[in-house]
């Protein structure tokens, strides 16, 4: 089999970069948010939870449309871009990261929140009686106990970003090496009837999705066993 041309490798590399950066950013943002959602008694926290979950239900076109405006010269994205002399965050890798963070957020927040909720009050109370500060209790007790949830969230966030299509199609501009990721490259190959290339990427995606879901099931099983 001939080695894949750069127009195959480019999107694969870019997709992995995008998903990795998005996942890391999501863990940083989603973990404290999930902690707050799990622990807070604020009456309006479910409203926040609902807002975070919206991308799960909304069509990507809705996100894409608002992102195109928000990232543009009239929106906050344009203001941010002007810091380094650009006019818009659309058509940039940064723009794709922002879009991916928003659209993958619910898939990361939900499992982490559930994991924090499952930890319950008891271990934290015990930590407190042992004179652990709340901060220390979070890092040494809650976080390790919730680690399966974090792992699940990270895997789901990564996988969902790899599978993101509609948002990227609408704000990406299809630039090789910068915004042409696997999903949009497949769309392009199919539209231009390059079946062989489409097949290579699409087949890879199927294998990847299979591996991710299988890994999730195995992780789940292993932790269930460990919990006894």
């Amino acid at each position, binding site marked *: 089999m001939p080695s894949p041309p750069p127009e195959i490798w480019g999107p694969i590399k870019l997709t992995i970069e995008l998903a990795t950066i998005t996942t890391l950013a999501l863990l940083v943002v989603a973990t404290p948010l999930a902690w707050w959602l799990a622990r807070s008694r604020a009456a309006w926290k479910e409203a926040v939870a609902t807002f975070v979950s919206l991308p799960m239900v909304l069509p990507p076109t809705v996100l894409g449309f608002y992102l*195109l405006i928000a990232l*543009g010269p009239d929106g906050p994205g344009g203001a941010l871009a002007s810091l380094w002399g650009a*006019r*818009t965050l*659309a058509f940039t890798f940064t723009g794709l990261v922002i879009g991916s963070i928003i659209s993958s957020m619910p898939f990361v927040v939900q499992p982490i929140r559930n994991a924090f909720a499952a930890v319950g009050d008891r271990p934290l109370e015990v930590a407190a009686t042992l004179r652990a500060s709340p901060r220390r209790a979070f890092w040494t007790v809650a976080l390790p106990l919730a680690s399966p949830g974090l792992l699940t969230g990270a895997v789901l966030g990564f996988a969902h970003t790899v599978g993101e299509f509609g948002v990227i*199609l609408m704000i990406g*501009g*299809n*630039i090789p090496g910068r915004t042409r990721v696997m999903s949009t490259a497949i*769309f392009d190959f199919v539209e231009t009837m390059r079946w062989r290339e489409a097949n290579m990427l699409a087949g890879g995606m199927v294998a990847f999705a299979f591996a991710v879901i299988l890994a999730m099931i195995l992780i789940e099983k292993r932790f269930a066993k460990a919990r006894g």
Partner: protein
Amino acid sequence: MKLTAFATAFLALLTSLPAEAGGVTHVAVAANFTEPAREIAALFKQKTGDQALLSFGASGAFFTQISHGAPFEVFLSADEARPEAAVAQGFAVAHSRFTYAVGKLVLWSRVVDVTDGEAALKAGKFAKLAIANPIAAPYGTAAVETMKALHLYDALKPKIVQGNSIAQAFQFVDTRNAEVGFVALAQLYGITAGTRWEVPSSLHTPIRQDAVLLKPGADSEASKAFLAFLKGPEARAIIERFGYALE
């Protein structure tokens, strides 16, 4: 009691919807022809009672769908190559193909002055130039040909952002995410914002837009009537008004 009244009214509304007697044709329309196609379909319905249900997208995307059995009955492409291929490959009815419009390419900007488009492209005082996907959309092909004819393609290439169809290229310029872009003149109908430069037709292959009757519509009276109407004086007046040339 109230509920029954409501239900009856609702049912009456539902049953009244398909009450029109005319036939229906499913038409795949190249994105640049969206607005004129809407007007033509409205007039067509008014005159014949038949209904044309329009889908809009990139010609290349439609061709792929049609070659895989999409249930479109009429195809209004943005080029002549795809309808020709549809006939050659047996997806369309032989001898039904004709040119319904000749498109005009425009450089448009809401940020910089492109009244002298050639000079503006040479000066390159913009970060992003939007075009339609040159492989899937004929207006994108014409845009690339134009830049090549001006010997500016290599210089401009890093600034190019592609819309999936000409509609998306328009959207990129309209939201000012891209400062300049190549769009179809028809898309600028009724728009006064920004500056524009009509690309001389000598700079690219003419954008002859062909219509064709597809196999699923071979026996559909409504589809044939729609194509006949498209050739007629009323439709041609609309097409011309939107800035297309006619053959």
